[in-house]
């Protein structure tokens, strides 16, 4: 009698549990949280490679992964709310770009893995103790932007040999940019260039910077690598063109929007490579043991039309190194 009762109880339990199963199946698909600095449209050329990278590794949106996008629209103060949103959706891994976003995620969670794409100086900013052994929950790719800012200035000097006064646009709220600005100052010192330091962090700040530049009349404008400037690239480049300001920037997007030149790693490629980290983490790898990768290839993009409009002749030593020339 007791055996039968037990059997009936088990049957009942199974029947009750059955409705839960389909739901469980749906919950099984891992979720990836993407924290974007700008908007989907403005960063489409970076998201695309990221999605391609995932596809190449066999991930299909909706079938075996689900990507949640949260966009800050250029306002970094949104980060905490957006991150909370992602964490509430129980994402298995967060992907983001830029130092401010990475630091915001690092503050919000110590357990959910984070793949950082294009962070300028993760060790210098205390995000990871070392590139080879990141330790905590953060790994990804560094854009080594602080190492390259000096080089960019050097390139600028080669194009405009007599240059003495350069405006530098940087994000004062970003700890990376603080470091970067210092590096630029150092390099400028070596190259004999005076720096007009324009630290901003809002649209209004950028407008103010514009006014300052109109007043000071620098000979060139260097835009440092911060997603804020990517977000506002159209306005910034328009201003640079209008005011005949050449520049060697980090983002090629600025060159595509009318800037003169860019020298830096391939950010699209780094987004693509981020998929590899996501894959490893989803398959159970510990981010603490995945070394942070540095870029190995660097691209020099020159906008010849902009050069013409600025009345500049690009010297042979620079042309030699160009990896891409845009008309």
């Amino acid at each position, binding site marked *: 009698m007791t055996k039968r009762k037990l059997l009936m109880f088990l049957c009942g339990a199974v029947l009750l549990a059955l409705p839960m199963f389909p739901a469980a199946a749906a919950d099984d698909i891992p979720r990836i949280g993407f924290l974007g600095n700008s908007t989907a449209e403005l960063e489409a050329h970076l998201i695309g490679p990221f999605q391609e990278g995932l596809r190449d590794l066999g991930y299909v949106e909706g079938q075996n992964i689900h990507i949640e996008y949260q966009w800050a629209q250029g306002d970094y103060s949104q980060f905490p709310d957006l991150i909370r949103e992602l964490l509430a959706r129980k994402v298995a891994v967060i992907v983001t770009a830029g130092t401010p976003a990475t630091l915001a995620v690092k503050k919000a969670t110590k357990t959910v893995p984070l793949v950082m794409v294009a962070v300028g100086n993760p060790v210098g900013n205390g995000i990871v103790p*070392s*590139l*080879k*052994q990141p330790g905590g929950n953060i790994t990804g790719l560094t854009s*080594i932007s602080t*190492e*390259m800012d*000096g*080089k960019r200035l*050097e390139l600028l000097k080669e194009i405009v040999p007599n240059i003495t006064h350069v405006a530098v646009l940087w994000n004062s709220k970003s700890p990376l940019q603080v470091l970067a600005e210092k590096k630029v100052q150092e*390099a400028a010192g*070596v*190259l004999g260039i005076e720096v007009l330091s324009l630290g901003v962090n809002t649209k209004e700040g950028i407008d103010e910077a514009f006014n300052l530049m109109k007043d000071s009349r620098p000979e060139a404008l260097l835009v440092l690598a911060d997603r804020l400037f990517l977000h506002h690239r159209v306005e910034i480049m328009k201003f640079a063109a209008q005011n005949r300001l050449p520049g060697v920037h980090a983002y090629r997007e600025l060159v595509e929007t009318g800037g003169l030149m860019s020298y830096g790693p391939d950010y699209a490629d780094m987004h693509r490579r981020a998929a590899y980290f996501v894959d490893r983490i989803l398959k159970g790898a510990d981010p603490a*043991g*995945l*070394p*942070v*990768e*540095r870029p*190995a*290839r*660097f691209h020099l993009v020159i906008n010849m039309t902009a050069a013409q409009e600025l009345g500049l002749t690009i010297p*042979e*030593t620079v042309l*030699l*190194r*160009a*990896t891409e020339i845009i008309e």
Partner: protein
Amino acid sequence: MVGDETDTARNTTSKSRLFRKYSVLISTLVSVVLITAGTVETYFSYQETKLALLQIQREKAIAAAAAIDRFVKEIESQMGWTMHTPYLRVASPLKQRRIDFLRLLRQAPQITEIAYIDVHGREQMHVSRLSLDVVESGKDYRDDPKFQKTLSEGRYFSPVYFRHDSEPYLSLSLRDRGREVGVTVAEVNLKFVWDLISQINVGRSGRAFVVDSSGLLIAHPDISLVLGKTDLSEARQFTTARAAVRSQGRMALGSITEGMDGREVLSSHAAILPLGWLVFVESPLVEAFAPLYDTLIRTAMVIAGGIVLSVLASLLLARRIVRPIQALREGAGRIGAGALDQRIEIKTGDELEALADEFNEMTAKLRQSYDNVERVSALKRYFSPQLAELIVSSDEGGLTESHRSEITVLFCDLRKFTEFSSIAEPEEAMRVLEQYYVALGRQLREFEATIGHFAGDGLMAFFNDPLPCPDHAAQAVKMAVVMREDVDQLLEGWSKRGLDLGFGIGIATGYATLGHIGTEDQFHYTAIGSVVNLASRLCDEAKSGEILISETVHAETENLVRVELEGERLLKGLPKAVPILKMVGLQQIDG
């Protein structure tokens, strides 16, 4: 019955013993063959697979080594292009060199930095992708092997070192040719080697990696192992490969060894000279041999299936062998139990059928001999044993049919027995008869007489039929004499007891008709005819102790007997008067 039980038990065990023996034998044989074949096949398959896999892996390793070699040679040759500066007539050789270096950077993305050190060991030009270019720094390289070694040997590869804890690098320096002897040093980012290695596809979980001459891991799909400065100098995989390269060069095929993560792997390698690096291509044994394991399992299943089939077949075969033998045994048992009319039916068309036929023939012969024995014992009622045997072996037909033969008939009986038996005790009469017939029987047997019939004290016997007897008259006479002697002794004994009996014999010779007389079940073989009557009447006429013979008997036995004629008498049933010849004695006996 206990005996039966043991028999049945013995029956079943011996049946299953033979059956078991054969089925075990056949299935064992087939199984051994299958297993042997399977094992041999598997062994050779294993060797072939191992060889094939090692070769494939070796090809991959060689290809990878060649690619890395090309990579390095490319850099060298491109660096070479920057060394023509001294030959160019330019205003500023330094500027020219910088341009050449920049061009090099454009064409060789693997080079991160390139520097020119003059003959005195001072750096003249330093161009970098990342840091600011430095012109005429004068940095002193005199003690640096990058300068020293290159100056002496012409080319120098530094040991692999790490930048930013994150990237493996190699310094490659070349010496100028010609008049101005300086050194060009390039810092090469080995991430490109890592790219190459990562792309090599080795099954599902196999991989390729590169180790430098000191055993340091310098490229591996899992870069963290490289950055962790993994040292493989003690690993068996590395030491074996290095030894193989030293001794066999390009011929080294590879081996099964312990891989980097401790698992058994199939490892092939190729050397990159002059760097002294080794490219390894390894795949886990489990994965590499997976198809072989599949084959093994398939073979095992086929063998298992084969064994099952062979067991079934052996059971069938054994049954086919054992059943006829079983039938034979049962048949023999039945025959032994006495059922002689049973036939053993085996139709296998082979020796067993022949054996069964032999058995049946034997049974038939047995039956025949039993029948004969019965017949003999039957005949022994009529004839002497020898006669009976003789009759049995000859054709029986002749006996049942009536026929004519010349015979000598002898009648004898006890005088006054009838009177005696009517007044005496039955037991006493029987005893007398018993003694009488014992005595008579002895002589009948001795002389091989055929008993016609006997009733009470009267006996009729004859000679020369069915057993031929040449001197049948003489035999009869001789027998009569001995009978008289024997019975005389009995008569003496009986008279002492007060029994007054006598004995008389009548013998006649002539033709008679002989055959079976009687009912269907019981019959006599006897004679009828005048000779019989004559003998009978003569016996009646004989007084106690007398033997009366007929004329014919006398004629036949003239030399043997002495007779006294007692005249002629007319006997009942006979037409003429018959001379009564009384035997007085045998001529041999009397003096």
